[in-house]
């Protein structure tokens, strides 16, 4: 990481060309004034020298913070760095890797990025019956971290005339669709056999994102910060009775419209948004959009079409389909068994493991087909564990798990 130093000293020798640095050294002790003529930025007031550190130094500093604070709550320090000022925000976003790359969740956008490939991110869900609220936390179980567990997402169940909806938000108490913390929802049909996951933004990589947003013609200067969220159908979930009716576990199938089957083929990648967008960029300048997507040659073709005002469909030509792993009948115990590797301890019809459903022609390796992409199950009264991994994101995983809470007796 130090390869920049040699260059710096050479630049320093001919330091006359680099006004910014030379001037700041000659400035009197403790001064926080830097000549504004040295900068072409639009900063209207004089900014601290610390905001304008040479990028390689700021990167070094923030990397040190990031590397030492990998788990929550300490990881909040990284988030704090991103909220200090513009330059620090840019550098921090450059330094932080996606969950797929490093296994850590850092910013809320991490919740819409695929999990790691090698091992799942382990979370738990707490159900609060009184308020029909479901909260997703990072961590193995509530017992281990007591009240310090990091809240990732929350959902509120709302029963309507012909359907049930779970509104999903970044905060535990605000589920209004107009709020910036609203990030999507799950809606079920009347019978509770089919569900649709809606994302408040199209789950594209940042490059494609700007094209999508142009359809909506929204500029941050023209509208108030609160813009109604979009409604992008990103997945459908269906439950079917087992052929043996009530005697066996139900069958689940998730069609992930926004994740192409190529994501789990060799060299494949899943969409990885790098910024929240919703008519308002987090940051005014487009130059901030650092693409953190894992990119390679394979990007599936995405179609964006409008079915009606409130629904926009994001369809892959060949979407990833997940199905639940069939439990085995245990003759001695006289029950259906799945190996949850200790993460699920209470038998429940809600428990499931999802793997990729693959046709032979789709060229998915046996190892990939074996991987449990999402696992959900009960460990106590109103407490469930959720383990998810690539190519699902925390948001998608949570929404799929919520559907398990709503299936009706007709399905059980």
């Amino acid at each position, binding site marked *: 990481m130090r390869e920049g130093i040699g260059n710096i000293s050479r630049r320093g020798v001919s330091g006359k060309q680099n006004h910014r640095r030379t001037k700041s050294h*000659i400035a009197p002790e*403790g001064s926080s004034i830097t000549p504004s003529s040295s900068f072409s930025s639009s900063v209207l007031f004089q900014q*601290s020298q610390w*905001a304008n550190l040479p990028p390689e130094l700021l990167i070094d500093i*923030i990397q040190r913070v990031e590397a030492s604070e990998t788990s929550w*709550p300490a990881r909040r320090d990284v988030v704090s760095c991103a909220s200090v000022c513009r330059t620090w925000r840019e550098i921090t976003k450059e330094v932080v890797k996606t969950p797929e790359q490093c296994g850590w969740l850092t910013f809320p956008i991490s919740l819409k990025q695929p999990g790691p490939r090698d091992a799942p991110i382990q979370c738990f869900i707490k159900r609060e019956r009184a308020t029909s609220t479901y909260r997703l936390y990072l961590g193995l179980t509530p017992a281990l971290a007591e009240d310090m567990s990091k809240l990732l997402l929350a959902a509120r169940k709302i029963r309507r005339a012909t359907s049930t909806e779970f509104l999903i938000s970044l905060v535990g108490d605000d589920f209004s669709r107009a709020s910036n913390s609203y990030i999507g929802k799950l809606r079920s049909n009347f019978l509770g056999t089919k569900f649709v996951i809606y994302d408040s933004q199209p789950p594209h990589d940042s490059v494609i994102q700007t094209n999508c947003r142009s359809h909506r013609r929204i500029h941050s200067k023209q509208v108030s910060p609160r813009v109604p969220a979009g409604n992008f159908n990103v997945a459908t979930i269906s439950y079917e009775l087992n052929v043996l009716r009530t005697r066996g576990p139900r069958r689940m199938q998730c069609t992930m419209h926004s994740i192409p089957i190529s994501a789990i083929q060799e060299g494949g990648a899943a969409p990885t948004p790098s910024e929240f967008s919703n008519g308002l960029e*987090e940051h005014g300048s487009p130059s901030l959009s650092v693409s953190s997507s894992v990119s390679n040659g394979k990007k599936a073709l995405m179609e964006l079409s409008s079915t009606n005002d409130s629904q926009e469909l994001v369809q892959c030509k060949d979407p990833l389909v997940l199905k639940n792993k069939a439990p085995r009948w245990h003759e001695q115990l006289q029950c259906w068994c799945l190996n949850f590797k200790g993460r699920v301890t209470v038998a429940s019809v809600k428990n499931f493991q999802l793997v990729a459903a693959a046709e032979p022609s789709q060229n998915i390796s046996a190892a990939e087909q074996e991987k449990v992409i999402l696992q959900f199950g009960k460990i106590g009264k109103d407490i469930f564990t959720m383990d998810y991994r690539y190519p699902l994101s925390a948001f998608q995983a949570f929404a799929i798990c919520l559907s398990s809470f709503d299936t009706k007796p007709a399905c059980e």
Partner: protein
Amino acid sequence: MSSSDSERMLKLKSSDGVTFDIKDAIVVTKLEFIKNIIEDCCGDNDLILVPNVNSEILAMVLEWCKKHVGDDIISDGEDDEENEYFSRKKEIKKWDAEFVKNLDQGVLYHLLMAADYLNAKQLLDLLTQRVADMIKGKKSEQIRQIFNIKNDFTPEEEEAIKKRNPWAFE
């Protein structure tokens, strides 16, 4: 003229015109920038200009250098020597901690820039780690106060960050 580098005397001159006499060039081996100049020159008692660093900061840098002379000498394996080596390492580490502990953010900044300019990797590591330690456990507003950084987000951006990133304000 001495043939050995380590016996060479030299002078450093800071940006504000103060001259520092260095009796033994070995003191400045950790300053790659100076070391390279020395290796390229052949005169004794040379005067090296350091136009990017003022006298107060240069004095501190040299103080650090003096403390760290020979700190990477590995012992031959003799027990006595090893004990001495480790206890010296420990003592230097403690000294470093004191060195950075109460630095005013302005001084820290100038030291950081000087270490960068002079290409003193070890000193730079010490200082960047110090800054990282000052950041840890702080919220963004506290960080701004410590380093005297102005919040340059527009009100809309600030609102969006707060709403889209509640994790920053827990």
